């Protein structure tokens, strides 16, 4: 398709890009914004490693035409850290818990997995084990058997609730 201007919020910043609107959001993020944290594993929605948030919901960025994000809010793994505080380069409790609970092995599924977990915890701050599994069921992981990922999301949920209740809590 012919290129057109696409304006959207990317990790809480307004951006505009001149692009073929039929390019995938994944390619747009990687090739045009150099946001390499969002990975590509299949290009067909079968693996979930390209998961980002579109208006707060987990989606496969490989299946989103760039034209679709016009006027919308996209959040990638790079936008997660700064979500917790205004300062850049800080880790979100989910990232922290992933590291501490051993949920990161090869790490290729990790960004997408964290985005799915993030979407879940926004909607359901204290999920059950089953709800965690359901929420990450579109994200394949070949290393972990999902157990420590499940543990990490549950741990992050606890921390996030704690932080909400005690804003000064570290």
């Amino acid at each position, binding site marked *: *398709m*012919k290129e*057109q201007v696409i304006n959207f919020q990317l990790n809480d910043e307004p951006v505009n890009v001149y692009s073929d*609107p*039929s390019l*995938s959001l994944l390619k747009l993020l990687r090739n045009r914004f150099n946001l390499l944290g969002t990975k590509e594993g299949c290009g*067909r*929605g*079968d693996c*979930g490693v390209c*998961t980002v948030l*579109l208006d707060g*919901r*987990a*989606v*496969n960025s490989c*299946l*989103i*035409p*760039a*034209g*679709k994000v*016009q*006027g919308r809010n996209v959040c990638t793994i790079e936008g997660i850290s700064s979500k917790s505080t205004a300062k850049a380069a800080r880790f979100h409790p989910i990232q922290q818990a992933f590291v501490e609970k051993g949920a990161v092995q090869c790490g290729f599924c990790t960004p997408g997995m964290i985005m*799915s977990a993030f*979407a879940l915890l926004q909607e359901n701050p204290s999920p059950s084990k089953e709800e965690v599994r*359901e*929420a990450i*069921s*579109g*994200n*394949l992981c070949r290393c972990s058997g999902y157990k420590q990922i499940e543990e990490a999301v549950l741990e992050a949920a606890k921390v996030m609730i704690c932080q909400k209740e005690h804003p000064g809590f570290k």
Partner: protein
Amino acid sequence: MSYTIASNLKQAIKILKESDGKAQVIAGATDLFLENLPSELVDVSAVPEILGITRGKDFLSIGAGVTHAEAAASSVIRSEAEALSEACRIVGSPQVRNMGTLGGNVINAAPAADAAVALVALGAKAVLTDLYGSSREAFVVDLYGGYNRSSVDSSAEILMRFLLKPAQRGEGSAFLRFAPRAALALPLVNAAARIRVEQSLIKEARIVIAPAKPAPTRLLETEKLLLGAKPGLDLWQKVKSTASSEIEVRGSMLRCSEEYRCHLVGVLARRVSQQAVVRAMEAE
């Protein structure tokens, strides 16, 4: 040569009209994006006229742009059209459910599209609008035009809404699928049923199975068997054998053999009917 997000129906129609058949409707993109894209796309996923779920006095109206996630989360759909709720809950993955729409599911016309199977069992009608503003109604099953082909031309018509009868007294519906994996899997067989009972006798029954034919397929013989019958072991045995013998299915290397699929059709038809009957009795 463009991608436009239509903000209302009028705009969507205008673009389709001006493109001379070159533009096509796109909603969640989860099917269309994997195909060769046309040169012009009209994104209808934000068109308010095709969104929302409303419960009228004697109808339930579900926008074609409603996503599987929205449908699965809707308490109205759960109470009035439980089969649809169950079908939408199981589609693909959370990511796919967040984007994929009911309208896209029907128009993409995959033989075993989950929401479509439930909609057919529920007897849903589709409301479509053409480029000149006139609208028509059609049963969902009639929107199928062949294997993976819709009879709706998405460059000339917009699927607006689905209309369903809400669950009546003594009515229950259910959806079941048999898949090789718990998520991200296409079913070997899926089945949906809508059944009404009166004083423990089955008064109405619609049983739908897929994939068998291009469209989700009603099991008419099985339905006949159910009508007027009193649920019991004997009946269920007969439902199973009638269902597996009344339609032909195909086998495929990636899914399962013809013989096994045929067996599953019988089992699922029975189980989904039983489930619907249990719910119907509870609603009596």
